[in-house]
């Protein structure tokens, strides 16, 4: 190893350290920015924030419960929840747009029920639709398999049974390669064991 190479490596590691140091700083700033942004929103549109906070409570609950990375449950509940909140928001924005009206809406049992019921429908969609879709996918998949099997049958009729040999050949190759790998692993382990003096 030459000195030049050593120097290059050192410089490289320093550059990497600098880059790694910027990332945490950015991440640390993000919550602060969010707080500032939310504070601005609350201060600018207090009546809308009140309405959304109360009306979108089911969505917040769903967000907390939903642990999947894609948050499909949250999405379903949120979409339907918004549908339920939308008439209230619309009324607020198209009439007085003040805090008293916002409070009036959120305290109106009818409006509140609409918001929460629509959120419940969202929950219902999330519970009922996926199984139905899965059945549908299965049916479509089966149809596709049947189609492909038919194509294979045609190929066998035209070219004979040997045309399917390639599958068994591939399987055999895979098996043999896996055996080889196992063998190599075993060999390696034996070598390791023998090198450590465990196996004589």
């Amino acid at each position, binding site marked *: 190893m030459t000195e030049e190479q050593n120097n290059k490596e050192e410089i490289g590691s320093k550059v990497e350290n600098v880059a790694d140091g910027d990332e945490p700083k950015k991440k640390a700033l993000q919550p602060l920015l969010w707080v500032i942004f939310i504070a601005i929103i609350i201060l600018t549109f207090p009546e809308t924030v009140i309405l959304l906070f109360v009306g979108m409570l089911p969505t917040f609950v769903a967000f907390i419960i939903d642990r999947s990375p894609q948050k*499909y449950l949250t999405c*379903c509940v949120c979409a339907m929840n918004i549908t339920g909140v939308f*008439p209230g928001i*619309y009324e607020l924005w198209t009439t007085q747009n003040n805090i008293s009206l916002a409070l009036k809406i959120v305290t109106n049992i009818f409006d509140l029920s609409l918001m929460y019921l629509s959120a419940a429908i969202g929950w219902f969609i*999330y519970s009922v*639709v996926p199984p139905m*879709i899965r059945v549908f996918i299965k049916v479509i998949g089966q149809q596709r398999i049947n189609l492909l099997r038919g194509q294979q049958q045609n190929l066998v009729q035209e*070219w004979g049974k040997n045309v399917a040999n390639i599958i068994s050949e591939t399987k055999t190759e895979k098996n043999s390669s896996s055996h080889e790998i196992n063998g190599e692993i075993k060999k390696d382990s034996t070598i390791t064991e023998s090198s450590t003096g465990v196996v004589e």
Partner: protein
Amino acid sequence: MADTENKLDSDLESGSNLKENKLTEASSARTSEQNSQTSAEINDDIITSQKPIPLIKIDAKTPSSAIERYDVYPSLPLPEYDSGIAKAFTAIDKMQPDLLLFCLICYPNIPIRLDELRKLSGKSIGHNILVENYGNLDWPLHEQQCLGIIFQRPTGQSIDKYFKSEEFSDQEKLEKAKLILLSSISALRNLNKLGITHRSIRPSNVFFSDSNGEDIIFGECVTTPPGFSQSLELETIERGIADEGSRGNGDVSDDIYAVAATISILLQNTGSFPTFASEQISFNKIIKGSFNILVGERHKSQKISKVLEGMLQDKIEERWNLNDIELWLGGETITPRVYEKETRASQGLTFDGIEYFTKSTLAYSMSQNRSKAVEIIKSGALTKWSEKSLKDKVLASKISQVTDDTTVQKDRAKYADELLLSKILIVMCPTYPISYKNILYTSDGFGSGLAIELLRGGDAKTYTESVSLGLLNFSFQLNSNDKIKNEDRIEIANQINRYLQKAGPGFGVERCLYELNPGCPCQSPIIIKENIFFSSMLLPTLDKIAGTTNTQKSPIDRHIAAFIASKINDDLEQYLSEIGDFDKSIQTLGMLKLLVHIQKNLSSTHLLGLAKWVGGLMAPAIRIYNSRKLRKDIESGIPQIIRNGNLGELLKLIDDPSHKEEDQLGYQTAMNEFKEAEETILKTETNSDPESEVAVKTSRQAASVLSILIMIFISSLILLDN
């Protein structure tokens, strides 16, 4: 007899006058030889059958009625011209009906001397019978095609009859004996010019060529292997010991010996001739010498005994040649040769209760009593006797060397004792026939011996085993007088070994049979009855029999493959190896390629029957294609080609390279498509499972999308409503 003549007369009513004369003449000849005629072993049905059988020329490319020139009459046998097992019948040349001919019908299970026949056919060779022509006949006695050879009848009678006759004085007979000697010089020289030995000179096969009895001709020499029909008296010691079919072509000295033996026998007819059992003849010849056995005491005092003594010398180098005989006949005195007698041992070796003093007598007895012979070799008694009593240290050292070599190889050789004995016998008497187990053959008689054994349905294993064990080569190495000839022989022996080592069609014992015996007809069960000698006859014959034979079997079997390989000089190895392949499709294609090769070489076209036969066997060959559609297309094309009778077109259709390439490409694509489909199926099966990750994810996505759509829809309605 009278019945036969009546039928003959009635048959001849419709024939030409000339023909009538000929047949009546033949008929009267039969009357004069009533005794011999009635004893002729000819089937009654055949005798009563009056229809002549046409002789079909066999080396023509296609048999045709146009070349059916000769008619042979099975009802008119001519026993005076019978030669060994070949029977003679009246024959007529339709183009020259005035010629007096006879036809010898060759026995189907005995190979003939075809090369010699071809050389002699149609040529007038001085003092030898004229071979007019030859061809196949549908011979009813053998119920198959047999080779018939047309000869011109000698004008005079057989000398055998002359010498047996009491009409002539001893002096006259001695004069005729000299005439035989004189004629034989010319006859044998003429044959020698053609590279032929006669090997069938015997009293019944020498004739007067004219009615006055002033000239002599030798009879036929082609219907059997050399020396096959000869009695042991007429054969030299070496060739007489060998089995009848394995006596070999020999050389002119063997014919000279036979001439002298014939004269001796003919002269003995007038007096008493000692009769021995056949096995005793050779033994007595070895002990006393041929001259002492064959020439009677009465004739030993006569002048002719000098020439007979010279001609009957048992050592080839001491035997008189044709020049010596000519000089003697010219009245010159031949310097008496000092004949070196075989070394006699000071003390005898007791073998099988008899004491032997010479190696030749001992060797002969050892070959007859093999188990005891092995004992005296192994005990070392033979080596000791050779060294101490025979005073032949060279022989003793050779014997001990062979014994040591064979003992070393004992574990490898299955028949070590037999091999040891055979080698010792060769060492003791190198000129004697090779003796192995129960067979005895001369080095140039191996081929015919093998053929006789095979054709008679015997087991040729002993013959092949002896070659594989190197006995032929061993014999050649010890008989190294003529180096160039010997090298050729060793090469032939090596070639035989190579053929035997290969087991596939076109090789093995069948190949040896046809390579060593050009006069052996093809022995394939399919065409054995057709008596095929030439490759040119093969395809037309297969074409002819296609309608009557089992066409489920391939027209090329082991015998036909070997026959073709030996008759056609082209390189056929590839086709033969394909025929021997385990894969039926390669096998069938190889068969077709070989047939096409022959058809092209021999320009045989329009083989409708064979094309139909072969076409019906093409199913495995078509299976080399993977595409079913292509197979059907080819199958549908075959009938049209069959109608043309051209095998080449059939091969072109089946073995088309463009078809093969197209099929291979298509097959590869189909395999890839199949593989892709299989992969897709597996993927779909995995993904369409309700519990699969993809299905769960997709279904949840769908629920989310549905919720969003509902949201958009309702929000839009609200907005539109207001």
